């Protein structure tokens, strides 16, 4: 096995940055010679006019600015990677995100045909460059440097919301795969089994027994690269809050409501609230799998008080109170019972996201997400097409979609709330709360790969 060297890995893969703003720049390579010079300078931090690529190695001091790049298949072709090497990349990446739309649930309003510029022209998207900083002027500065070499087709700015929350009001980013060989004090208390490096990086053993994913050619160059699904996900928070209110009205008069939330338990939710508001929060918590403050529903079904409850250490069972259809259980079923018995823990990926918007004109807001792994088919797509949508992992939810992220339509959507002592109350009629508004499949090349691309001559 190759010896792992964090200096070869881009910094946004193995760890999140302690920086609160991001600017994703969607770039076209209009002059491949100058683009290669840029890559060479970025890889090794040469020249005032080119930002240096941030690595994964431990920093001696906190960086003010971080900079990383992802390259699409069209980008590799445009940079001049020869066709016999292009052929060694996996099919999902070669086809690109827009041609995988049906598998990803990107249909109806989320279909790529409806994506706004620059995502309406996926053939022109060659590079997604991301700059991270706390101050906007740092981001402007980097964009200026980038724009001297590339055609900037568009940008998307993101920021961390207060308390680590997303617009739906949940605390996010609590659980991440913990990787062997990686120093990660932030997630040290998480007792879920550790992931091998092959979960995110090419060239290492994976969580699937015996399986190693193929490194594109030349192997010594593309080892330590990763694949990223960059997604622009619009969140319809208005529709979500409205639905919670409707659901609470429906539940208040339901004969089984005391088994959903015992009388008086509303005192222990959100610091004490009305019965109606507490029922709204119960629906939100069961749909997500966590209360909005992050407390796992599985560990605490009648209260969101965090006293002594681990945010990460719990498991699911056949009698779980956390619904099998909840977002978190679909995305990571942990050690719980699933139909695909060999698949527990095998489809995890690294998620890094920041919120965007609201747009001053349209009010559009949502999440700019990076979903990083070593293999789209085994991780991102597998989770999207069989677990988030369709629900194949549990016969009780098969045929339904994730209540938060799924490709729902009110005519067919349904979600079963669990009750104390078994049984359920079925909710239905909710719309799609998250719409896809853009994205791209990008390779996050290793540092040797960036240098290799910068030296192409075709």
């Amino acid at each position, binding site marked *: 096995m190759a010896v792992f060297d964090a200096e070869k890995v881009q910094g946004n893969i193995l760890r999140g940055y302690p920086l609160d703003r991001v600017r994703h720049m969607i770039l076209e390579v209009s002059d491949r010679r100058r683009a290669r010079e840029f890559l060479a300078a970025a890889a090794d931090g040469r020249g005032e006019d080119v930002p240096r690529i941030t690595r994964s190695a431990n920093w001696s001091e906190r960086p003010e600015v971080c900079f990383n790049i992802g390259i699409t298949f069209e980008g590799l072709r445009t940079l001049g990677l020869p066709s016999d090497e292009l052929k060694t990349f996996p099919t999902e990446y070669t086809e690109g995100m827009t041609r995988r739309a049906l598998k990803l649930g990107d249909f109806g309003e989320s279909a790529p045909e409806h994506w706004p510029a620059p995502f309406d022209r996926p053939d022109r998207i060659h590079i997604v460059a991301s700059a991270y900083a706390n101050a906007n002027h740092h981001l402007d500065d980097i964009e200026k440097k980038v724009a001297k070499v590339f055609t900037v087709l568009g940008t998307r700015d993101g920021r961390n919301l207060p308390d680590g929350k997303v617009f739906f009001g949940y605390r996010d980013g609590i659980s991440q795969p913990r990787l062997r060989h990686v120093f990660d004090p932030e997630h040290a208390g998480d007792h879920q089994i550790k992931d091998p490096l092959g979960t995110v990086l090419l060239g290492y053993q994976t969580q699937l027994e015996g399986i190693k994913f*193929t490194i594109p050619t030349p192997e010594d160059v593309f080892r330590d690269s990763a694949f990223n699904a960059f997604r622009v996900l619009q969140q319809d928070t208005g529709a979500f809050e409205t639905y919670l209110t409707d659901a609470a009205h429906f539940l208040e008069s339901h004969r089984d409501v005391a088994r959903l939330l015992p009388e008086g338990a509303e005192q222990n939710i959100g610091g004490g609230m009305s019965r109606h508001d507490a029922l709204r929060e119960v629906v939100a918590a069961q749909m997500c799998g966590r209360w909005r403050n992050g407390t796992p529903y599985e560990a605490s079904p009648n209260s969101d008080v965090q006293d002594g409850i681990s945010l990460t250490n719990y498991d699911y069972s056949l009698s779980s109170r956390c619904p099998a259809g909840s977002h978190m259980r679909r995305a990571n079923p942990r050690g719980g019972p699933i139909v695909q018995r060999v698949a527990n823990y095998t489809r995890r990926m690294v998620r890094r996201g920041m919120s965007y918007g609201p747009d001053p004109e349209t009010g559009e807001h949502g999440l700019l997400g990076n979903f990083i792994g070593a293999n789209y088919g085994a991780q991102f797509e597998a989770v999207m097409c069989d677990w988030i949508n369709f629900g194949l992992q549990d016969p009780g939810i098969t045929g339904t979609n994730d209540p938060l992220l799924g490709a729902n339509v009110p005519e067919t959507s349904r979600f079963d709330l669990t009750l104390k002592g078994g049984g359920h109350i079925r909710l239905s009629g909710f719309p799609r709360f998250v719409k896809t508004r853009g994205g791209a499949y990008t390779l996050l090349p290793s540092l040797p790969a960036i240098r290799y691309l910068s030296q192409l001559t075709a």
Partner: protein
Amino acid sequence: MSDDSGWLNSYINSLPERGWFQFLSKYVVVPFWVWREGRPKLPGGPRPSPQPSDNTQRMMNLLMPLKDTSPIGRAKAVMALAQNVDEIFAGLDNVGTVHSARFLLVEDYICMISVYDGDFSNYIRDFISTIGSVFDALMHEVEGGDKLYPSEENVEAFIDWVREHDLFQAPDYPFDLFGLQDEQAGRKPNDPPHDLQTLPRSLILQLHANRNISLGGGYRGYPGYSAAQIRRNLGVGW
């Protein structure tokens, strides 16, 4: 063809039955068509669909061409399976999404015919991670199988290979073939719309690219149910 009963029309209508015309079609007309406007090969397996009912009980008709088609070669392939049948069935059981699977030796192919739920690449990947080393024995007897060895380190290529050798499933409504051909050639489907009379020609050209096909998606006795749902409802545990 015309309904008019004139002698010329009658003669033209009878052309497909005439020997000289069949000869001409087989050796001149069809090869010319293929050269002029051949259709790209259509991919195997069921097509992605947003409908949950389309995602249960999907059919796999995997035709694996034998390297050695002599009785000895055929026997080797049979032995590779027969020696490992328990492991293979246990592997399929652990994948969890398979309704049924069987192996056939037909002409020059070892065939794996199976019914499964959800995405086929997840099925194949989980299968390989469970019993890949056992399946490798069979792949040694199959044309093109050597470069997939060991399957555990060539999962992507293995999955692409299976898709390549899984039969194209002709659409349940014949005229839907036009749209699939358009998409495969990178055109917008049915824009402009196709003349229904050209369907036989399109089918002939497609059968040139896809020699063996599945006629439609297949019949389901209890549509929309996953293997796990059936097991659960029968009380046999999923």
